[in-house]
């Protein structure tokens, strides 16, 4: 089978990455590397790596993460008993950076607004170290089951799992959380290598439609954040309507929202776009980051780190 991308996607990518389109398509055609995170709620990194080595795995650290590793050869970790017991969690390498960017500390109250299936929630729980509160929310009953299973497997104690529409969540718990993660549903153009049909059937209407939902989610997440708190908005897509446009609207609507720089710990990336196709997002958007698959060797992501200013 060969990679087929829709005409609309090709046109969009030609405007976004005219000189790097071939590079992106090359990465779309490659499988993602197998990467995992050691769950320090259940074991230590050293003990876990020792057990995996005995099973024939050669773990190699992911430079921009604290507990993430590449697994070679592929296929052993995900089928191992250690995975079933929750000692490891299979997670993309850039996805791990999203939770790290949230600067979670033990004792914090953290909201993961679109949490299923739970990669970032279980990571946040690990960073909380059993102290504080994690609220993992999702809108889908089916996906909440997967979320609950993963939280259980990872041994997370201090969690509340909720089934609610994320667009209204913030109105119910205004200013309650120290940290909020909005890992919004998106058109998934950053992880096209996982499912080529996304690339084949993509149309800009998808981004336009999801953009409205993403704006409601980011507003809701921001309302749930306490003054002085940090929110991360992330997607695994490349379209500016789902990324910079969403963040720009938040900054326009809420005076107390401001962007801060993201530490990428050596991971190659591009800055966010100040403008695209006649739309102006502002120079602040250079504090957001775009990570393309050819930079990470894995998923593509967009991330914005937002703080809520203290009043007075």
């Amino acid at each position: 089978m060969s990679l087929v991308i829709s005409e609309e996607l090709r046109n969009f990518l030609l405007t976004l990455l005219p000189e790097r389109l071939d590079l992106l398509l090359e990465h779309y055609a490659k499988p993602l590397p197998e990467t995992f995170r050691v769950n320090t709620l259940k074991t230590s990194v050293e003990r876990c790596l020792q057990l995996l080595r005995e099973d024939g795995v050669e773990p190699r650290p992911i430079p921009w993460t604290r507990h993430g590793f590449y697994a070679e050869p592929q296929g052993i970790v995900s089928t191992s008993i250690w995975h079933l017991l929750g000692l490891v969690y299979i997670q993309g390498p850039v996805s791990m950076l999203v939770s790290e960017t949230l600067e979670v500390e033990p004792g914090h109250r953290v909201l993961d607004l679109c949490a299923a299936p739970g990669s970032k929630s279980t990571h946040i729980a690990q960073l909380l170290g059993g102290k504080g509160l994690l609220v993992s929310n999702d809108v889908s009953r089916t996906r909440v089951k997967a979320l609950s299973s993963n939280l259980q497997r990872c041994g997370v104690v201090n969690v509340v799992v909720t089934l609610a529409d994320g667009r209204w969540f913030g109105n119910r718990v205004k200013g309650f959380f120290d940290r909020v993660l909005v890992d919004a549903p998106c058109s998934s153009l950053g992880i096209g290598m996982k499912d080529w049909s996304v690339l084949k059937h993509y149309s800009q209407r998808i981004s336009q439609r999801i953009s409205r939902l993403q704006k409601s989610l980011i507003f809701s997440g921001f309302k749930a954040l306490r003054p002085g708190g940090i929110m991360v908005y992330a997607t695994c897509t490349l379209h500016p309507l789902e990324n910079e446009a969403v963040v720009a609207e938040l900054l326009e609507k809420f005076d107390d929202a401001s962007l801060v720089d993201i530490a990428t710990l050596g991971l190659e990336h591009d800055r966010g776009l100040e403008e695209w196709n006649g739309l102006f997002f502002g120079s602040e958007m250079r504090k957001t980051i775009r990570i393309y698959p050819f930079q990470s060797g894995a998923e593509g992501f967009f991330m914005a780190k937002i703080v809520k200013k203290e009043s007075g």
Partner: protein
Amino acid sequence: MKPMERSEVEKFIRELEQQLKVVVDFGENLLVKTGEGKIRLVPPDVFEAAMVMPGVQQMGLYVAKWRRYPTLTIEGCMFLCSADHTAVVELDREQALTWMKGGPVDVGKKAQLVIGVYRGFYLGSAVVDRTGRAYPQIPKWRRIPE
């Protein structure tokens, strides 16, 4: 969801000691019954926060099941302080994989309820029949597919 009364928690811990022959320490955490005999462990501040959240489905960690007899889940074993040697069965790799498939695993006539251990990691409890075969209480979603 309502936390168990102190007397009920004490009775549960006593039954764990008498029937499963283990000592557990749930600390200051609350134990909450959630139907089908399932017991979840919830820190008090998490329970309090859950009261103001919309659409709560679950809170805390599923640690045990208590019907005719008490059993501990894999994660429930995280709260073990000690266990009688008759209650613990050391498993080899093959046995551990069979255990995680839902068993049965031949453990001999040690006790009616046992806890499996593989390389220092607890695999939850199992009910042993008269022939000495242990049937692990692993939920279906957690089992290795056959």
